[in-house]
C-alpha cells in the first residue's frame, strides 16, 4: 500500500507533456488561458465562503443594504449566535457524538476488516459480499424501520432505566447505528490483505495469536488507511443531518447541524447571526481539512478509484 500511495503521488502531478518545452520566463497564451480557467474555478468555489464570513461580521442594517464588506467587523455576532442559538451546547454534543462514533467505528471495522482479510472462516466471502451490498441502500429505506428500532418498538434495547427502553433523544441513537459501515471495512480490508504473509508467519513462530499480531504488527503499519477511515468518519458524523433531525426532538443531544437548521427556521431576517452560526459549524471541519489536506484528497482519490 505504501508503494501504491507513493506511485499515486508521483503520477498525480506529473505532467504528461514533458517533451513540450515552454520557455520559463514568458507565459504564453495557452498558459494564460489555463490559469484563467483555474482561477475562475477557484473564485466560484470560494465566493460563497467569502460571502458567509463577510455577512457574519455585518450589522443587521448592512446585511439589508448589502455591501461587500462590513464597515466595522461585528465580532459580537459570533458571541450572540453562540449563546442565543444554544450553539455552545450543540457544539459540545456534536464533539461527543463524533468522537464516540469514531471510536466505535474504528473498533468494529478494524476487527472485521482484519478477519475478512487474514482469517479463513466458513462463509467469509458471502458475509463480506452481503456487507458490501449495504452500501447501495438509500437512507430513505432504512430510516423508517431504524426510527422504530431506536424507539425500542422492535426489540428491547439496553439502556438506563429512565430512558424507558427508548434511545430517542439519547446518545446511543445518534452513535450506535453509525459505529459500523461496510465502506470502512472494505477500505481497511483492501490494505490488510496486502500485508505479506511473512509477517504473520514470523509472528506465529513467536507464539502470537491473531489479536496480538493485529495490535502489534498490523495496526502500526496501517496509519494511512486508518487516518482515511477516521477522516471519513469525522466528516460523516459531523455533517450528519437527516437522522439526527429524526431522533432529537429535544435539545439535550441535538447536534450542531440540526441546531443550525432550527436556527434557520427561527432566526428569520437576522442573516448575520445565521452566517456566524454557519461559520461556527464549519470551523472544526476546516481545521481537520487543512491539517490533513494531502491525506484527505489522496485518500478520497484512491478509494474513489477502487470503490
Amino acid at each position, binding site marked *: 500500500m505504501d508503494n501504491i500511495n507513493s506511485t499515486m503521488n508521483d503520477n*498525480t502531478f506529473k505532467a504528461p*507533456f*514533458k*517533451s513540450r518545452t515552454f520557455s520559463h520566463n514568458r507565459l504564453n497564451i495557452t498558459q494564460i488561458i*489555463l490559469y484563467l*480557467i*483555474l482561477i475562475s*474555478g*477557484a473564485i466560484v*468555489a470560494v465566493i*460563497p*465562503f467569502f*460571502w*458567509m464570513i463577510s455577512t457574519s461580521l455585518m450589522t443587521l442594517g448592512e446585511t439589508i443594504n*448589502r455591501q461587500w464588506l462590513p464597515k466595522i467587523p461585528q465580532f459580537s455576532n459570533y458571541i450572540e449566535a453562540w449563546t442565543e442559538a444554544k450553539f455552545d451546547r450543540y457544539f459540545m454534543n456534536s464533539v461527543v457524538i463524533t468522537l464516540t462514533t469514531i471510536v466505535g467505528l474504528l*473498533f*468494529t*471495522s478494524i*476487527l*472485521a476488516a*482484519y*478477519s475478512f482479510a487474514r*482469517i*479463513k*472462516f466458513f462463509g467469509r466471502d458471502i*458475509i463480506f459480499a*452481503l*456487507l458490501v451490498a*449495504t452500501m447501495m441502500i*438509500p*437512507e*430513505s*429505506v*432504512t*430510516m*423508517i*424501520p431504524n*426510527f422504530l*428500532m431506536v424507539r425500542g418498538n*422492535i426489540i428491547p434495547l439496553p439502556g438506563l432505566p429512565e430512558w424507558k427502553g427508548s434511545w430517542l433523544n439519547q446518545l446511543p441513537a445518534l452513535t*450506535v*447505528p453509525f459505529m*459500523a459501515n*461496510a465502506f470502512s*471495512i472494505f477500505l481497511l480490508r483492501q490494505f490488510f490483505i496486502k500485508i505479506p504473509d511473512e509477517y504473520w508467519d514470523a509472528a506465529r513462530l513467536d507464539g502470537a495469536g491473531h489479536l496480538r499480531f493485529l495490535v502489534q504488527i498490523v495496526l502500526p503499519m496501517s496509519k494511512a488507511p486508518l487516518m482515511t477511515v477516521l477522516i471519513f468518519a469525522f466528516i460523516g458524523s459531523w455533517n450528519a*443531518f*437527516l437522522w439526527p433531525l429524526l431522533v432529537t426532538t429535544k435539545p439535550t443531544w441535538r447536534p450542531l447541524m440540526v441546531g443550525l437548521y432550527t436556527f*434557520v427556521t427561527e432566526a428569520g431576517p437576522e442573516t448575520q447571526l*445565521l452566517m456566524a452560526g454557519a461559520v461556527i*459549524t*464549519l470551523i472544526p*471541519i*476546516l481545521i481537520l*481539512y487543512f491539517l490533513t489536506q494531502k491525506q*484527505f*484528497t489522496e485518500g478520497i*482519490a*484512491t478509494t*474513489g*478509484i477502487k470503490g
Partner: protein
Amino acid sequence: MTETTLYSPNAPQKKKFRVRWLDIKENLTGYTFVLPAFIIISMFGFFPIGYAFFMSLYNWRVRKGPFIGFDNYTKALGDWSGVVLFIAGFIFLIVAYWLWTSAFNSKNSNLHLATRLFAAIMMIGCFIVISKGWGSMQEAGDKNFLASLPITLFYSIGTVPAEIALGLVLAYVLFQRINGKEFFRMIYFLPYITPAVATAVIFRTIFSPRENSLANQLVGLLGKEPMKWLFEPKPFTTAFLGINAEQLNLPELLIGPSMALVSICFFGVWTYVGYNTVIFLAGLGSISHELYEAGEIDGASKWQLFRHITLPLLSPVTFYLALIAFIGTFKAFNHLYVLRVPSAQGTVDVTSIYIFDTFYKANQYGYAAAQAIILFFIILFLTYVQNKVFGKKVFYG
C-alpha cells in the same frame, strides 16, 4: 496448516485432529472479530429492508394497523396496468436501443438500415407506451409522489453531466504544467467536505429573492431583472428565458424544472465538481506517459491526444463517477431539505424529501415505507440499466 501434511504419514489420526482443532479455532476467531460490525450492520442495514417491506403492507400510522396488502403501493402508483405499461415501455426501450447498436455490427447494409428503422419506430412506440402508462398512473395515484419522480430526474440531469464535464476540464487543466496545483486542488475540494447544511444556508442567502442578493447582483451585470430564485415555482424556461411555456401547452416533462430547482442544481454542481476533479486527477495520473509520447511522435495535436488517449482511458473513471453521482442524486436529502422554501410550492420536492414528509410530518409510516421501497427499486433498476447500456462503452485497457 499445510505443513502438517509434510509430517509422517504414520499418524493420520493425530494429524486430522490437529487440523480440525486449528480450523475450529480459526473459524471462531474469524466470527468473533466480525461479530460487532455484523450485529450493527444487520440491525441498521439489513433488517430495515425486510422490515420496511413488512411495514409497507400495513396501514401503519405511528402504530401498526390492519394488514392491507399492496394497497399502499396502489395508493402511490395508482393504476397497476399503467405501471405495467410504463415498465414494459422501458424494457422495450432497452431492447430497441440494443437493436440500434447491434445494427452497427451487421455487414449487410440493407439489413443494417432496416434494423435501424425498426429500432427507431420501436423507440417512438415505447415513448408513447411510457407516456400512456404514466398518464394513467397519474390519474389514479398519488400526484405529489409521482410528481417527485420527474423532479428527481430533473435534478439528476441538471447536476450530473455538468459536474462531470466541469470536473474533467478542471482536472485536465490542473494536470498540465501549472504552478500551485496543490493549492487549487485544495480550494476546489472545499465545497465537498464542508457540511451541506451550512453551505446550503449560505446558498439560501445567495439565491434569495432580495434585489441585492449575490445571485441578483450577478444577473444584474448581465442586464437582467432580479429574480426570485429559490422562491420561484415557475419553470425556468418562463422565469429565466422568458418563454411562456404554459401557453405552448407542452407536456409537463418538456417544460422543465422550476427556477427553484435550477437554483438548487447550481448548489449541487458547486458541491460536487471538486470531488470529481480530485478523482479525475488520480485517473489522469494512472495513464502512462508513453502513450502520449507515442502520440506526439505521430504528430497528434493536443486535442487529438485528449480525444483518442485521455478520454478512452479515463472512461472507467467517468463511468464510476457518473454512476455514483446519479445514485447520489436519488439519495440526496440534506441540502434539498434546507434549500426548499414554502414559496417554491413543492416544485423542489424530490422523492427522498417527499418520503421524509410522508413519514415525519404526515406520520404515515406504512405508506412512507412503500414509497421508499419503490425508490429503492428505481435505484436498483437505474443502476442495472446504466451498467448494461453504458458499461459496455467503458474501455478497461
